């Protein structure tokens, strides 16, 4: 699998969450994703970007365009140095929230992409990697 292009964006404010969505939209469109697939990956990016800002205390997101044989994909890696997630399995469950959201962000984002990986260490931070293939 080859990374054909990559870029990192800072993620500390609500405005930067919007910027990440717009960026994800642009990359997905350039990779030739269908409108529905673009919308899914952008929505997943929006959920995770908000989590990075609100729960992770800010961090960054790394974009990568992937090529594996004939298929192309978009990978996003969200990283923060926040408090981490104590119980990942619980956090992925619909309706579970430690904030005042709906608790759909993590589980919902997972359903919207093809690959979802979460690494979190309490007190050290969280890294979530999502990939959507065309």
């Amino acid at each position, binding site marked *: 699998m080859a990374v054909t292009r990559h870029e990192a964006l800072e993620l500390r404010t609500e405005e930067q969450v919007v910027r990440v969505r717009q960026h994800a939209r642009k990359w997905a469109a350039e990779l030739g994703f269908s409108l529905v697939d673009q919308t899914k990956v952008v929505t997943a990016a929006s959920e995770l970007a*908000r989590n990075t800002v609100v729960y992770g205390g800010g961090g960054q997101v790394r974009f990568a365009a992937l090529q594996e044989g004939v298929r192309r994909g978009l990978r996003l890696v969200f990283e923060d140095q926040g408090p981490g997630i104590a119980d990942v399995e619980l956090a992925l469950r619909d309706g579970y929230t430690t904030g005042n959201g709906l608790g*759909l962000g993590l589980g919902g984002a997972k359903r919207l992409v093809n690959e979802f990986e979460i690494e979190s260490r309490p007190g050290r931070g969280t890294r979530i990697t999502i990939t959507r293939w065309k």
Partner: protein
Amino acid sequence: MERIPILKMGGFLLVTIQVDMHDRLAMQLQDDLTEMISRTGARGVLIDISSLELVDSFIGRVIANIASMSRILDAETVVVGMRPAVAITLVELGLSLAGVRTALNVDKGMRLLRTAVGCEPEEPADGRDEA
């Protein structure tokens, strides 16, 4: 401060969301709308989201909140113009927007509001002398 404009048309309030909203802006719209319903006594709210390329769980929650709050304030809310890709994504995300009335376009939304409220969106006839 940045704000989404709310138009008053007869007894209804109209909102067209044309920007990619950050969370504070969405919350501001929720506050402004509820304040305006109570101030104007509007019986219906029409929210046009045909320009929105994305509705995530936060924006979805704000839309659902607006519908619940306006109902408590005796106004009906109709959300119109949701893009098919947005609808597909919302359902997969796990958000059904239960309790939110929707219509395909502004025309149908206005018709739905008039039926729900049982009146025309114009001011009463005796209000015609107003500027």
